[in-house]
């Protein structure tokens, strides 16, 4: 797509839990600025792949490079500081903090405040403005002071995305951002994702084919721990291997031109 170094370069990635190998040799390059969707049946290893990229889990073998820099063996916070941020399939927020505090916490490191105990939060205009900006982006400005734990499910999902993007990372991983949402909520979430990942690299696990084909530049199909195809949406639709392994069970409306 571009000649520059890929945002993510995964090669020979494997992960076993005990005797069972869940990720069985994945090679995948994701270009800068690309919106990449990963689809595949339940239990294929999509979330596990995200856990490996974001260092929540350590790979059994293989390497991962982020913007050309090897990140294998780093801790999650180190990878985050290098500009990769991820969301979780199961909502993972700071439940007793307010919506605003959730987002402000998420911007502090990237603004350089680190572990400071000599700044007063209330006078940090940049942190406040950025948190409020994200809060408007995800449409939770009316819930500013509500504890995250008592938000509705859809609101929590929105906050999950907000925390992920607030730090300004340029590589964003979203794990099933629209799971469990109604149609209208999904449409809103898609618009939101499109807006907040402008000029960023997005990798997204998603089951909703409408979302996938509407948003992705390229799609990878992950089946049983292996990527069986990576291509444009049109080509993926037409790929007999994919139809057999995956799409066959989930009919896709519309035809490839």
């Amino acid at each position: 797509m571009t000649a520059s170094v890929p945002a993510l370069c995964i090669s020979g990635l494997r992960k076993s839990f005990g005797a069972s190998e869940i990720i069985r040799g994945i090679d995948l390059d994701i270009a800068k600025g690309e919106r990449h969707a990963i689809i595949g049946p339940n239990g294929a290893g999509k979330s596990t792949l995200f856990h490996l990229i974001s260092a929540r889990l350590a790979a059994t073998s293989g390497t991962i490079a982020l913007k050309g820099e090897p990140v294998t063996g780093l801790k999650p916070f180190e990878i985050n500081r290098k500009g990769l941020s991820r969301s979780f399939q199961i909502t993972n927020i700071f439940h007793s903090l307010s919506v605003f505090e959730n987002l402000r916490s998420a911007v502090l490191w990237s603004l350089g405040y680190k572990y400071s105990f000599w700044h007063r939060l209330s006078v940090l205009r940049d942190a406040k403005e950025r948190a409020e900006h994200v809060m408007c982006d995800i449409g939770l400005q009316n819930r500013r002071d509500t504890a995250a734990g008592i938000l509705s499910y859809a609101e929590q999902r929105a906050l999950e995305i907000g925390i992920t993007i607030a730090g300004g990372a340029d590589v964003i991983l979203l794990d099933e951002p629209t799971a469990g949402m109604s149609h209208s909520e999904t449409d809103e979430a898609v618009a939101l994702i499109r807006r907040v990942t402008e000029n960023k690299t997005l990798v997204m696990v998603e089951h909703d084919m409408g979302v996938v084909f509407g948003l992705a530049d390229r799609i990878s199909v992950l089946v049983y721990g292996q990527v069986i195809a990576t291509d444009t949406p049109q080509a993926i639709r037409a790929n007999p291997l994919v139809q057999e392994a995956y799409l066959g069970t989930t009919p896709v409306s519309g035809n490839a031109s």
Partner: protein
Amino acid sequence: MTAPSSLPRQVLIWAAIFVIACVLPSLFRSGFLVSVLSQIAIMAVFALSYNMLLGQTGLLSFGHAVYYGLGAFATIHLLNGLGKSATPLLVALLPLGGGAAGLVAGLILGRMTTKKAGTTFAMISLGIAELMFATTPIFPSVFGGDGGFAGNRMAGKGSFLGLTWGPQIEIYWLVLFWAFVSAGLMFALTQTPLGRVANAVRDNPERAEFIGYDTRQVRYRMLVLSGLFAGIAGGLSALNYEIVTVDMLNAHTSGSVLLMTYTGGIGHFFGPVLGAAMITLMQTLVGGLTHAWLLYFGLFFLFMVAFAPGGMASVLSRQSALVKAGLWRCLLPHYALAAAPAALACLGAVGLIEMAYALLAGHDAASFMGTSIRLHTLLPWLGAASVLIGGIAGLKWVIGGMSDAWHQALSQLQGGKP
């Protein structure tokens, strides 16, 4: 801790505490009261420092007395080291030496304790505290053996602003000064990036790592700062009592600060202050009245854990929210109705406990309101037991209506502000 209390309310609480702390001693002019107040202020600092771990970072420590005790020993050694050259101004600054000792201890011990949170932290903090306590006899020159170390805060000459730290009231003002400085700084800490991220780490350490924070570093920094303030509290205690013993860093001291903080309320900044005041008062007042005070104390703690896990601060803030919303009027009759059987139940329980204690102590009779009660007869036992049972039955009778009214009021309170 959900919505930050509005600033005016915080200011109001600070002002109220300040006024109470200043007015009480001159109102009563009792030496005993002043020394109780000094103790409360010291314990408040200690408990606030403990809550930096428990309430703010989610770390349950069973060994916080280490920092308190080391601060106290450092201070008493500094005091004795100064000897006759100790001017009142220098003495007034000594708690900072205690703080430094707590800080250094935190820097060293924190490396081991803060690797993990949860049970691991709790167990390692306990282990290190026990280890420290067990090694104290090996260093009699540091810890002074069983008798500890005594000091004299008036060893030097002169005065500072007319103060010599001789009279208890003067040391009270000194303690109060440092208590407010420490509490102010600890409050300020809650309003900083580190303070807020500590809350995030408490809520969800995993996610904190994915917003760029090394949770271990967050825990470590909070522990070191907490050690600093615990050390200051220890230093204040050294000046206040002019004696420091190894008891100050044993598990019992670690346990009391946990109880104070917890019963006061870990979710509110001032909860630990409330707990420190309440439990110090119980220790000194109830402790003076009855030998069974530890038992009452245990019962009180159980009661709080079972019925008010948010501590006294959350009970108070709930009630004040209800008062503000005008809903208290619906609840008041229920409270009044419950008060009588509750008092009866307490009376019966206290009667039984006191008689049992008297009997165990080898007495044949106990005096109650001027009359003598013979303990080897059945009647007083039956009487106390029936008062207790009657009280409990009465409570059961009214509790249903009260809890209905309570839930109704709460749902109105939440519905009232969408």
